[in-house]
């Protein structure tokens, strides 16, 4: 028989420390849905998604009941639509966006990702059409998520794409102004995007992926926070070891659920993404973990070091617990989705410059940040360029999910609701970056991209 204290520890993690599986994401290839007529292409996409994902939600809910573990989200990721739609003789791809939205609603999932284009080295005609349709699609749909990869360590940074995405983000905010620019919360600009990410808004089903695949994202900031409370005042050796042990347990749970979902759905298991993903709920915050290491408020001096330790220890603990680890794997710092981050911004301790530093050592980037509605497209592009540079030079994924909240100023509050949370509008640097962004072209790949 298992040890009674081990059993009660697991039960307490689920009941009181918000331990859950954050998402089971079914990746579906849509390559075989290409067709010159966009309506036929959309119908094929809708039919295929509904066929492949029909049992996803019911299976997820059955696993929840049997294992006693909440699976917060069931989601779908698809082949980047720019690749599928390239065959279509049409200039407006938003009809495909609506087909994705309808398919997601029909399957009962809460997001579908992959309204995406990969343009790190340059644009195809289809990439340009897709990017042009992003604002309209995000305004017209509720469950579709979009992402654009503008840089890789191998290719460098496509600065034309960076400039374009600044304008696309502004237009998306404008078309969803009635909801404080909500469309931008479903749009991610990546550097070094990964092909098997199960988390939204950036999930898509990459070119090297199989026909269908199950990827699972675990969570559990509350469990790590609780464990660190028990080692107050101890050295960082103890802190790192505590995080590793906790991450191991969390990931094992993810692995068991991933294996069960894969077997029951008859779909191969892809990866477990070892991410600490916060929610706006109290006790489910990454910021509070950093504070538990001894910082008064997240964002003060020492925060970057604390996050670096956390991110690394999560990976070390998790990697042995799963057969295949992938996705983004690390600690997320989405500001509006993290109760502690929200408070840290409100108190004025956490600012955009410190967040940028933190993105050098966390798993993603400037995530769910609200900025004033009058922030220019060029400034947003320059923020994207900075993040892309961090990703490209450090050989890691970085992303920007930024909301220029219409008619909002520094200090105002923006409500997105649900898991997307609420954000306080942050100050951006007012000095102009327009001439820098107007140059266009590509920032070359760094020397360490030449590894052959």
């Amino acid at each position, binding site marked *: *028989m*298992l*040890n*009674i204290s*081990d*059993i*009660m*520890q*697991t*039960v307490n993690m689920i*009941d009181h420390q918000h331990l859950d599986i954050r998402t089971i994401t079914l990746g579906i290839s849509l390559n075989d849905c290409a067709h010159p007529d966009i309506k036929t292409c959309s119908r094929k996409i809708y039919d295929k998604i509904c066929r492949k994902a029909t049992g996803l939600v019911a299976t997820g809910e059955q696993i929840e*009941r*049997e*294992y*006693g*573990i909440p699976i917060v989200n069931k989601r779908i990721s698809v082949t980047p639509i720019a690749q599928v739609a390239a065959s279509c003789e049409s200039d407006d791809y938003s009809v495909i966006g609506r087909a994705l939205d309808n398919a997601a609603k029909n399957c009962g999932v809460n997001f579908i990702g992959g309204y995406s284009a990969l343009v790190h080295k340059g644009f195809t005609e289809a990439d340009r059409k897709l990017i042009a349709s992003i604002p309209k699609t995000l305004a017209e749909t509720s469950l579709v998520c979009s992402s654009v990869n503008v840089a890789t360590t191998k290719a460098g940074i496509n600065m034309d794409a960076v400039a374009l995405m600044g304008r696309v983000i502004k237009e998306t905010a404008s078309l969803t102004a009635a909801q404080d620019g909500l469309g931008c919360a479903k749009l991610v600009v990546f550097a070094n995007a990964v092909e098997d990410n199960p988390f939204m808004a950036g999930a898509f089903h990459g070119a090297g992926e199989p026909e269908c695949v199950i990827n699972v994202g675990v969570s559990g900031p509350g469990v790590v926070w609780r464990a660190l409370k028990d080692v107050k005042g101890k050295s960082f050796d103890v802190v790192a070891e505590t995080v590793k042990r906790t991450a191991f*347990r969390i990931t*094992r*749970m993810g*692995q*068991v659920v991933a294996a069960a979902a894969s077997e029951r759905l008859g779909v191969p298991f892809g990866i477990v993404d070892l991410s600490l993903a916060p929610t706006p709920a109290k006790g489910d915050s990454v910021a509070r973990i950093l504070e538990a290491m001894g910082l008064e408020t997240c964002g003060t001096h020492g925060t970057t070091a604390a996050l670096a330790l956390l991110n690394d220890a999560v990976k070390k603990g998790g990697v*042995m617990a799963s057969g295949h680890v992938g996705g983004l794997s690390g600690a997320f710092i989405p500001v509006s989705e993290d109760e502690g981050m929200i408070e840290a911004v409100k108190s004025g301790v956490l600012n955009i410059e410190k967040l940028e530093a933190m993105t050098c050592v966390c798993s993603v980037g400037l995530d769910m940040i609200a900025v004033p509605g009058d922030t220019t497209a060029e400034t947003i592009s320059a923020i994207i360029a900075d993040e892309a540079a961090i990703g490209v030079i450090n050989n890691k994924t970085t992303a920007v999910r930024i909301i220029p909240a219409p008619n909002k100023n520094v200090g105002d509050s923006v409500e997105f609701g649900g898991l997307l949370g609420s954000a306080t509008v942050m100050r951006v640097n007012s000095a102009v970056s327009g001439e820098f962004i107007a140059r266009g072209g590509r920032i070359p790949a760094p020397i360490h991209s030449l590894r052959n």
Partner: protein
Amino acid sequence: MKAVMTVTAPDRVGIIAGVCSLLAEMDVNILDLSQTVMQGIFTMTLLVDTSTSSHTFDEIRSALIGRGEAEKLDIHIQRADIFEAMHRV
């Protein structure tokens, strides 16, 4: 299916009897059981085998949770493999 049950509640007479008789009514076999009282809180863990029962796992789970709510017991039942995975390398 092997499952782990946990029962916690303020200690009183008859908790084990109540839970175990419900399991017996549903033909669920108890493989192992341990219980303790910590600071007045009764805590029991059971390893059970649901394959001896004609009821589905969902039915057994609903019956246990229903009984727990009626008698103010906090009852969980989960597949045993999750605990083995989390606590054994």
